[in-house]
């Protein structure tokens, strides 16, 4: 079950010709796939394209009606390999993943796919996780397109353009026998807009049809001598075919006045930012009408030489506005101009920062500098006038506390790292290798645990070099999530550790979902899933890989046990990896699952216990040791109002879900007796109520008795 239910969105996928679809960019793409007669779809979830996967997972009925096969691929490599179905058969296939990381994983399959080429339209929708809000290293997918010679579309960030590019992508792929990457930026995926829908199209050929009439063509198989033929074909047939399609179908758009002495070459994805900058300079209206000559590249690879040269012809200067580095497009365009002996001045990264997202301010400054340099006359006088002196705004950067993302309230991973921190307090620091997933938040305060992260499922692999010569010396600790474990970790991390007899400690953080990407089911998920086989045990898999020392913890909140198990693993004489599988359900998903059930039960008069934690403010001394082992959003500080006290005390607010971490930590770390668990019993039984009444009667008698002999302030 994914984090969100997509029932509403699924209905949008049924919209027919002329109806208006309104929603997220990534969902528009999903609809467009169905409108273009796609036969099969695969991919691996991850921001910003998770919703494409989630909505299709919920849309099984529609897919069945249309005869479309959908698969939640095991990895991006799997997804890309899946496109092999379009090598011999005229099947339209689409896969999607987060990039650049996904493309890294996919690149082996991608090279093979690109070499042999495709018959059916093959679309790779890459969610370019670049710029603000990105969760990964800052690289461009563009390089993969260049090296494998697969084409790349980067449509203008509005729903009609994005939807159109899906259709064009399939056609381009078929016209040039080449897979096509459709690049969508983070915000294009999450932008809310609308477009006019068309009817969904049943694929001309389904995967079943293909299976029933198998085909094979030796020249498409990646094996010498065919591979030499493939390379030649890429350059002599597929590339020209691609350029022809792009030009014949005006995939790239031209705006403004061709007579202009200057011009802008813009990636489709950045078009809106450029128009806004021009508007702020009085050179474009809010609808994008402008006199400035703009070549908007919705196809950023390949670049069509004839089109580029025609656009630059007769211009004094051209400004290539390209996001990210290296500036591949600028270099190519410069090369074209130079070879054609053009004397058009080429501007680009010189006026823009080499790396980083092209924000509104950056583009504005770049354009202003470009105009001042090459067409000062165009810059309206009003705009060149000096600003009215603005007041000096005080610098707050010194005082603002950073607010990085962290574990949610009640997260089952928090106690794992609380335990790890306790182990380190006792046994000293260790080399800790982290992995991709929510558990990576351990590198932030208050835990500050983890030295490296080398890729999805590669946590333990990234610690494999650390072989300690003395048997009873320090061991490395590495973490990997259940998602990463199944994605790549089984072989690359666990298998590797077994085979090479790595002695390190490996903690597999199992929270029942691929949680960080939105709570999708994976092999070891505990949920029943109509279309997937879940409930596959991680522990069994680990044993199957040959690990001898395995411990399964079914309640990560037991900090004491977690700590002791870690210590046991670190001190174990056993040869080979020590694997701890720490399992508890992701609280975010659990709450979504359990809350409605609880509410229903309470309404139905059933007996329900609602746990919550609290702090006795008279007992708490305000040293905040508990928070240094928690960082839970619901555990915070508050003033007591007692003039005799200086420091704020710990307090737990109503967002507490009663996971128990506070109490368990206070116990394991022997912090203080301030914490209590209060379980409110809804619809208690009569005997229960009677007993409670009796007990409180006796208690108040005892209290009175005690107070009779002393001065109390109550």
């Amino acid at each position, binding site marked *: 079950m994914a984090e969100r239910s997509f029932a509403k969105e699924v209905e949008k996928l049924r919209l027919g010709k002329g109806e208006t679809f309104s929603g997220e960019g990534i969902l528009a793409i999903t609809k467009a796939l169905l409108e273009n007669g796609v036969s099969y779809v695969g991919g691996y979830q991850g*921001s910003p394209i998770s919703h494409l996967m989630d909505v299709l997972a919920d849309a099984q009925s529609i897919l069945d009606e249309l005869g479309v096969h959908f698969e939640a691929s095991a990895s991006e490599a799997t997804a890309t390999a899946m496109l092999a179905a379009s090598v011999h058969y005229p099947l339209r296939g689409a896969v999607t993943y987060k990039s650049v990381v996904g493309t890294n994983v996919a690149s082996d399959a991608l090279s093979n796919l690109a070499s042999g080429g495709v018959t059916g339209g093959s679309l790779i929708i890459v969610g370019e996780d670049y710029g*603000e*809000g990105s*969760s990964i290293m800052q690289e461009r997918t563009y390089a993969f397109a260049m090296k494998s010679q697969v084409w790349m579309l980067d449509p203008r960030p509005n729903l009609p353009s994005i939807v159109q590019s899906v259709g064009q992508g399939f056609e381009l792929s078929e016209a040039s026998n080449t897979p096509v990457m459709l690049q969508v930026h983070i*915000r294009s995926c999450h932008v*809310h807009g609308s477009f006019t829908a068309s009817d969904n199209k049943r694929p001309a050929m389904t995967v079943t049809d293909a299976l029933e009439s198998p085909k094979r063509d030796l020249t498409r198989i990646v094996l010498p001598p065919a591979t030499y033929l493939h390379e030649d074909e890429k350059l002599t047939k597929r590339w020209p075919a691609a350029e022809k399609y792009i030009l014949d179908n005006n995939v790239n758009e031209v705006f403004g006045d061709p007579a202009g002495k200057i011009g802008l070459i813009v990636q489709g994805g950045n078009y*809106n*930012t450029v128009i*806004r900058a021009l508007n702020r300079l009085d050179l474009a209206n*809010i*609808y*994008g009408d402008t006199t400035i000559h703009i070549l908007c590249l919705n196809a950023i690879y390949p670049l069509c030489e004839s089109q580029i040269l025609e656009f630059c012809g007769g211009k004094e200067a051209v400004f290539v506005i390209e996001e990210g580095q290296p500036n591949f497009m600028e270099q190519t365009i410069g090369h074209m101009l130079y070879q054609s002996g053009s004397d058009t001045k080429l501007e680009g990264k010189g006026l823009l920062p080499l790396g980083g997202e092209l*924000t*509104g301010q950056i583009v*504005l400054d770049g354009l*202003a*500098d470009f105009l001042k340099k090459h067409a000062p006359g165009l810059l309206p006088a009003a705009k060149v006038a000096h*600003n009215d002196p603005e007041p000096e*705004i005080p610098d*707050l950067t010194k*005082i603002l*506390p950073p*607010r990085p*993302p*962290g*574990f949610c309230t009640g997260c089952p991973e928090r106690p794992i790292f609380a335990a790890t921190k306790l182990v380190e307090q006792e046994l000293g620091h260790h080399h800790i290798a982290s992995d991709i997933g929510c558990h990576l938040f351990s590198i932030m*305060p*208050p835990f500050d645990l983890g030295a490296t992260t080398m890729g999805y499922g590669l946590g333990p692999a990234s610690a494999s070099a650390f072989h300690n010569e003395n048997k009873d010396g320090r061991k490395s600790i590495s973490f990997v999530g259940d998602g990463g474990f199944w994605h790549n970790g089984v072989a690359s991390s666990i298998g590797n550790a077994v085979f090479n007899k790595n002695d390190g400690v490996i903690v597999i953080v199992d929270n029942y979902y691929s949680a960080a990407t939105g709570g999708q089911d994976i092999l070891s998920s505990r949920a029943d899933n109509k279309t997937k086989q879940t409930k596959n045990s991680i522990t069994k898999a680990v044993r199957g890989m040959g690990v001898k020392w395995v411990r399964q913890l079914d309640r990560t909140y037991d900090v*004491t046990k977690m700590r002791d198990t870690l210590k046991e693993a670190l001190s174990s004489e056993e040869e080979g990896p020590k694997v701890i599988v720490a399992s508890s359900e992701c609280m*975010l998903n659990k709450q979504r699952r359990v809350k409605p059930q609880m509410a229903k039960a309470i309404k139905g008069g059933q007996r329900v216990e609602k746990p*919550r934690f*609290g702090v006795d403010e008279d007992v708490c*001394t305000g040293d*905040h*040791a508990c928070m240094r082992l928690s960082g839970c*959003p619901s555990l*915070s500080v508050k003033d*007591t109002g007692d*003039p*005799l*006290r*200086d420091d704020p005390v710990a307090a737990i607010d109503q967002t507490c879900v009663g996971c128990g971490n506070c109490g368990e930590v206070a116990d394991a770390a*022997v*912090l203080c007796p301030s*914490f*209590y*668990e*209060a379980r*409110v*019993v809804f619809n*208690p039984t009569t005997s229960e*109520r009677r007993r*409670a009444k009796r*007990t409180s009667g006796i208690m108040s008698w005892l209290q009175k008795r*005690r107070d009779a002999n*002393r*001065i*109390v*302030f*109550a």
Partner: protein
Amino acid sequence: MSLTKNPQIVARRSPGADGEHIITLAALAVGGQGGGVLTNWITAVAEMNGYNAQSTSVAGVAQRTGATIYYIEMCRDTGRKPVFALSPSEGDVDILIAAELMEAGRAITRGFVTPSRTTVIASTHRIPAVKEKVAPGDGRVDGKAVLEAMGIAADHVVAFDMETLAKEAGSVISSSMLGGLAGSGALPFTKESYEDAIKASGRGVEASLRAFNRAYDCATGKEEAPQPVNPQKALSVLTVPAKLQRQWDALQKRLSNLPQDAQELAALGLKKVVDYQDPAYGAEYLDRVERIAVLDAAPFTMTQRAAKYVSRAMCYDDLLRVADLKTRRTRLERVKDEVSVKDDQVLMLTEYFHPRFEEFVTTMPRRLGRRLSKSKRFKSFYTRHFDKGRRIRTDRLGGYLMLYMVSALRPWRRSLLRHESEMEHVSVWFDKVVEIASNDRALAAELLANYRLIKGYSDTHARGLSTFARVMGALELLHGRNDAADWMRRLREAALSDEKGEALDGALKTIA
């Protein structure tokens, strides 16, 4: 991101032919604050009023407690689709909504608040970041600077505690922020259209509307916004059994002879101490305070400090104290109130205890305790069988009685090992204070305040003691310096700023 704008350029959006213009709105929220809901409401309102609207956000880390930005652009529909930007630009934001005070500050540093342009709608409540919470002392940032900066940077400010307001209305902050926005008049939409948007959303409508309307009135100045309440310790009622009345009156008399300026604190301290042990203990307390008072002069800062910290020093946290507090009537009431237990519901209450060997033996009579604490065999025996976490159900008679018994040891507290060690520690400290007080009152006052460093239980308490010792140890270095008091204060603050004591090391180095 830097604030440097191209100084030459006056970069304002230009309107369309028909005077229609794009309105930009950015909302900075902390994950889990319902920024998504707010965004949908605003978009709906705009569309209801015949506007084109586009919203973007970076999901993912949003609900995972990080700071997140939601962005909306809207423009009166003239039949053509405007080209909307997908993220806010420095100096190009018309309306900035911040769901927490520091996030408003963040918006300013990022250049999203522009003089004579931006309307800021900010909730002034604080959600302390982890960095602020983990300090051993009080690590919270003072928001005053942010409020001032807001006043300077913004064209128009609507700022009040929208969180409290929403809570009071039984709703969440997204509704009160929408009310703030509507009330600010920054958008050309009627109040009704906002309300319709809320009604259309269908969940928790009543509560949302309550919060919305109240926030609207606060924004328009029609209603007083909820003021920051500095919590006042509930004035505790005093019950004095007849047989103790005389002693109590005597203490009151001594209290009234203390310097006026110190009496309020001394009164609180006396209450605390008597409540902790008995009137005789209160007398001991006053002895100490009076010893300081006679060495003091107006404004009697030293005496006030003594009143405060001597009471804290004498009321050390031992098992008896904890058991006592946890078995009081008032305590149970507070818990019930905190988790809001209704009459037809039952409360199950579990206390988390983990008494170690040290706590156990020091709760023994002096001699026995000392002997046991030396015995290795007993220690290992205890560790083997008793040194573990205990969950005590104080809603059940068994568990309650256990604690009640421990609290009943109070009359014998003076004879327990823990008391002895604590009192030794107190007198060493206090004598030092008295010694210094005669020639450097300011320094003596700081020495008194150093007791703030001792808090927590078990290991945390031990750490506190050693930090205290290190800070007190600096006396040698500071001897005879006229800025000694100031240094002592700095050392203490350093010690309170980080747990590892690195700040303190640094401070100690810089003294000499």
